[in-house]
């Protein structure tokens, strides 16, 4: 029976999913235009033209939503569609005549188009309370709240450059927020509570101890417990011990919250890729709409929009004016938490010059 099972076939070849116009012009594209926010036109060396309409998606969807998209793609795109690396959906229109009717129907359905050029495109994000065991915050709800607030920027090109926001609900950072213009990161602020009775049954003590990057975990002095203790002074709540040992939860309903990091990027355009850096160490976790998070992000975005030069990403803007000015302009207090103290990496963040502003 095992022989009959099909395994290790990998994904289907993409070739069968490409619309004919793309197949014909594969690798022959010459240039593109963005006709309006959310609408791309790609022109081939053969003269062929492809129109792509990009729309927002909550990413956390149901088969009903997926089928809705299929209906649209059948009607206007010969039965083809794709998703982007930031989880927007794209309708691939080979027949220009279908463009306006598609747009009209999308508008009727409340599926906003945008996400191109100097916009705030969809927020790359993670599971949150919907599906994960370690989140400090929800994911989809914050994303919805932030994008509702920044909606004007999704469907327009009014910013000085692209702005990429990402969210991760814990320090594992599945949203890979570490190189985003604006990063929303769920943070715990409680050392793990060791459940001694459980620990001895479900966890390997050496592995648990080794899991802690700061060496905060030690064998419990009472050997009979066959458990561990945490030096709370040394714990920075990364949750890595919990990943290895379920008997060490580090959740707290009030102390968890949101950290905002800013100024990261990935592309090589002008400046090399940059890490996001801590802007606000903690904002309370305030469902269902997280007004403080939304407000902080809007403030940063607005100040950036006002202050940046043409083409400057957020990190490039801050790099030019200096972080001390960023904190001043955005009215964000500078705290101990901002100063890196994580092992030797920290040294590279200290200023060893007079290149600062008063």
């Amino acid at each position, binding site marked *: 029976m095992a022989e009959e099972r099909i395994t290790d076939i990998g994904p289907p*070849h993409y070739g069968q999913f490409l619309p004919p116009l793309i197949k014909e012009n594969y690798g022959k594209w010459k240039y593109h235009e963005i006709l309006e926010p959310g609408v791309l036109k790609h022109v081939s060396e053969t003269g062929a033209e492809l129109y792509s309409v990009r729309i927002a998606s909550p990413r956390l969807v149901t088969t009903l939503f997926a089928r809705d998209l299929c209906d649209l793609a059948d009607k206007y795109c010969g039965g083809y569609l794709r998703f982007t690396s930031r989880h927007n959906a794209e309708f*691939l229109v080979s027949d220009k005549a279908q463009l306006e009717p598609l747009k009209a129907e999308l508008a009727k359905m409340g599926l906003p188009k945008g996400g191109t050029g100097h916009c705030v495109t969809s927020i790359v994000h993670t599971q949150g309370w919907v599906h994960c065991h370690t989140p400090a915050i929800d994911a989809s709800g914050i994303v919805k709240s932030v994008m509702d607030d920044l909606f004007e920027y999704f469907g327009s090109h009014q910013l000085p450059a692209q702005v990429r926001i990402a969210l991760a609900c814990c320090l594992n950072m599945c949203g*890979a927020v570490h190189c985003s213009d604006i990063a929303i990161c769920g943070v715990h602020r409680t050392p793990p509570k060791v459940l001694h009775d459980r620990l001895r049954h479900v966890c390997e003590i050496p592995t648990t101890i080794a*899991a802690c990057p700061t060496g905060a975990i030690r064998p419990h002095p009472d050997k009979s417990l066959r458990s561990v203790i945490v030096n709370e002074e040394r714990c920075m709540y990364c949750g890595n011990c919990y990943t290895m040992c379920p008997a060490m939860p580090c959740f707290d309903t009030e102390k968890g919250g949101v950290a905002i990091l800013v100024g990261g990027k*990935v592309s090589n355009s002008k400046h090399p890729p940059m890490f996001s850096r801590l802007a606000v160490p903690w904002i309370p976790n305030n469902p269902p709409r997280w007004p403080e998070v939304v407000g902080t992000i809007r403030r940063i975005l607005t100040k950036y929009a006002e202050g940046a030069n043409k083409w400057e990403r957020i990190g490039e803007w801050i790099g030019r004016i200096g972080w001390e000015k960023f904190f001043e302009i955005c009215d964000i207090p500078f705290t101990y938490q901002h100063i890196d103290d994580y092992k030797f990496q920290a040294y590279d963040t200290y200023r060893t010059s007079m290149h600062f502003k008063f």
Partner: protein
Amino acid sequence: MHKTPMLDHLESGPWPSFVKDLKRMAAQKSEVNDLLGQLERSYREKITHWKHGGIVGVLGYGSGIIGRYSDLPEEFPGLEHFHTMRINHPSAWFYSTQALRELCDIWDKHGSGVLNLHGSTGDIIFLGCRTEALEPCFADLTAKGWDIGGSGSAMRSPSCCVGPARCEWACYDTLEACYQVTQEFQFDLHRPSYPYKFKYKFSGCPNDCVAAVARADLSVIGVWKDDIRIDQSAVEAYAAGEIKPRGGGAHVDKLDIQADVVDLCPTHCMSWDGRKLTIDNKNCNHCMHCINLMPQALRPGTETGATILLGSHAPILEGAQMSWVIVPFMEMEPPFDEVKDLGYRITEWWAEHGKNRERVGELIMRLGMRAFLEAVELPPVPQSVIFPRSNPFFFWKQSDFDAEAKGRKYYTKEGFDVD
């Protein structure tokens, strides 16, 4: 239906609402109703109600399924089992509606009907499967040509940018490379035998639209070696304001070639005399900025391939890393043997020396770049560093002294000596 007063707030507003969508599904599937109910409780209590994952899977595979159980199974029986299935997505996330509908059919049949399009690694994520439904669901998937992605200490589903399918800047065929690499490493995707996860991402040019440099252990980013192609008449059209910068995606309608392009070129290798744009291509570092702003005038060269970078990952354990250059230029033609081969060499070395849950980038930090380069037989190249070391703490091996004795100035490795 569970009452969800807090979640209901998320039904309004212009951004598409996941709550609305889930509610539609909740009307059909009680587990989705439970999902909303438990989520509401998390919103109230500000705490997750999912238990630490357990080990579940499909026969013969050790990866691709994330076990998930509610800690309130009595209150929300539909969530008693609520596992994730990661389905390996097609290159660049292209679908025919037929294929996407087939996936929906399978998922409606075996699971909750809730999914992510897509997961952050790229997979199609089916959220909410009972243990006993995993195997039948898998059978239906493979019957339709789909397979499961990676999880645990295994390779992950590689992903790639839209590349030559719709982008004029692709310096190699990202879709085919992604497909072939995925096929090549099926064993490693499904049978955890690495120290930890291993991700591949393929971007067609230095714009890096799949964030390969930040999110893949092995990042393959397209690049050209020769000259940027220039259409001078199009440059003039940009200068005259006849073509909008960045294809129209910017907040300004007219390009100031000097201020916007030339002055912002990071290597200062461009000049513009008001009529002609000149690029000193030897000094260009292919950052893409000028091309991005003038897609109708400038294009990457034609001697193309990819740079291979290695090591990026999120901050666990010692802080995030970005991938670093290990091969400045590699030709990228099907069947992509060179990149596959390098992949094998890297993962073999890592599997041999890596500690449990140590990413390859962390292992290199621990054992040193030389140990890595020698093991995978790559020569040291200056492109791999931003600058050489500043500390004087460097090692010499017997092989260095032997090379010195033979009259070679420096030892690198037999086969690619310099002197």
